[in-house]
């Protein structure tokens, strides 16, 4: 089963006179009409600031906004869900609100070479402020993490930051092992789940993770919103990050007291329409058999990668069952930037470049890759057309 493509207005779009084949889903996903409609409904019928006024629209807006939080908590089985502008802000929030309060000089933050810049730079910035050490788990030839190196790197580690699923390789990391091992030495674990949550309903509590970061726009929700999930224990050890309206209990010239719920970390007028759109996306996902869809997409990715390989491409990925449908590849005789332009001329949207994961690409020994990433509305037919298009380009320009 494929989700009804007619649910996604953009799929009717023509690109340079050709039918759009959108294969840049790891960058951002398309939105079903229900998501767009939910935001329109807010703006056209009950746009109002939340938490503050007693009038009817303020009540409706507040209920809608907070019901997104409830939906999110239920979907992920999480005690605390703090809204942020996306994965990046979520990780920065963890670094500021928890890291600054709980890390001490000499403590180690352990990351992986597979991290997205959003899970590296916040810790580098924090290391500029605190005297903490940063370490990285290497990636092996088979595109998986070097778990022996991980085991050997745990000395002094207080926090492990690991990407659930790589946006370049599609590889899903053994977070269960990493969490268990990290906890056994008393370290906390932050999961960058930006690429994990679109494909799978993750049970945060059961996963045992301490933090989990995500973006709505990568799971059919709007831009401008995401979340940091945290356990109650972590929540209680976080200090306010940004100050302002809505996060305070009282303000005097001498000092302030803060809310004791998630609002404490959501200063200012929140992302109201965005939360409402995200809830609609989660409700939409709830009607999809995500596991079946995921298998279907991984099959497509596997087929695509083997076809590309037959055409002479080097493939960066492995397409086991739990991995994401992300195909990174390179041709010796065709620059990826050229390929992307030629494909664009034929209606195909793929991504090329460093994918905000320069350390990983350095480890792979390349400057960038071409990446085709599939999502719920993509079909096997599109994969076939994509391979045909690549063949055409190779014949013409290869």
């Amino acid at each position, binding site marked *: 089963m494929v989700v009804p493509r007619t649910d996604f207005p953009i799929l009717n779009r023509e690109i340079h006179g050709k039918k759009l084949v959108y294969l840049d889903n790891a960058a951002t996903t398309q939105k079903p009409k229900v998501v767009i409609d939910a935001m329109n409904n807010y703006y056209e019928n009950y746009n109002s600031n*939340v*938490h*503050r*006024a*007693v*009038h*009817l629209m*303020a*009540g*409706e807006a*507040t*209920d809608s906004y*907070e*019901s997104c939080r409830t939906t999110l908590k239920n979907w992920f089985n999480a005690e605390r869900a703090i809204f942020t502008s996306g994965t990046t802000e979520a990780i920065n929030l963890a670094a500021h609100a928890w890291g600054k309060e709980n890390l001490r000089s000499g403590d180690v933050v352990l990351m992986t070479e597979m991290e997205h810049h959003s899970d590296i730079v916040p810790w580098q910035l924090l290391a500029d402020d605190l005297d903490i050490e940063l370490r990285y788990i290497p990636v092996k030839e088979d595109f998986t993490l070097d778990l022996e190196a991980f085991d050997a790197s745990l000395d002094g580690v207080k926090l492990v930051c690991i990407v659930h699923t790589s946006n370049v390789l599609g590889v899903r990391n053994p977070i269960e092992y990493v969490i268990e091992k990290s906890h056994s030495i008393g370290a906390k674990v932050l999961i960058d789940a930006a690429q994990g949550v679109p494909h799978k309903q993750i049970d945060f509590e059961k996963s045992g993770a301490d933090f989990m970061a995500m973006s709505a726009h990568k799971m059919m929700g709007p831009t401008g919103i995401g979340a940091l999930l945290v356990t109650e224990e972590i929540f209680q050890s976080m200090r306010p990050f940004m100050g302002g309206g809505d996060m305070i*209990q009282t303000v005097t010239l001498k000092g302030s007291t803060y809310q004791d719920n998630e609002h404490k970390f959501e200063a200012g007028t929140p992302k109201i329409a965005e939360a409402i759109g995200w809830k609609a996306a989660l409700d939409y996902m709830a009607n999809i058999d995500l596991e079946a869809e995921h298998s279907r997409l991984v099959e497509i990715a596997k087929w695509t990668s083997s076809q590309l390989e037959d055409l002479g491409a080097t493939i960066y990925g492995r397409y086991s069952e739990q991995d994401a449908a992300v195909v990174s590849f390179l041709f010796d005789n065709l620059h990826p930037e050229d390929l992307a332009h030629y494909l664009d001329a034929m209606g195909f949207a793929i991504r090329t470049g460093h994918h905000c994961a320069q350390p990983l690409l350095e480890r792979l020994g390349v400057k960038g890759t071409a990446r085709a990433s599939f999502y719920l509305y993509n079909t096997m037919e599109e994969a076939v057309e994509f391979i045909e298009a690549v063949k055409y380009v190779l014949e013409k320009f290869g």
Partner: protein
Amino acid sequence: MNEALEEILDEFEEIEDRMEKFEFLHDLSDELNQLPTEEWTDSTRIDGCQSEAHVKVWIDSGLVQFRGGADASIVAGLMGIISIAVHGQTVEYVRALQPEFLARTGLLNSLTPSRSNGFRNIFSRVKIAIGE
């Protein structure tokens, strides 16, 4: 739900005009055993009302005791309803009571416990007092 409460909620459902509902609510504040302002403290204060709103809930011989006071009359009226709902009732009875009955008044613009919605917070205070 006790009979007095049922009657009041029926009455609210019958009144269509919202202003008339408020008039009816206004009268219900008389049903409230007043918590004298001298007894208003930080621990009696209800968050989420823009007015000063205070309640004291305790258990006496297995029966819930409710006193309240507020400087806004709508809040006092809602306290009146809650008082009718819980004052003098058994702990078991109150435990079974869900805050949703307040929605039958048709007066709640929001169901989210928040700054602008102290009504639910008043009821939560009752629940806390009986150890929920």
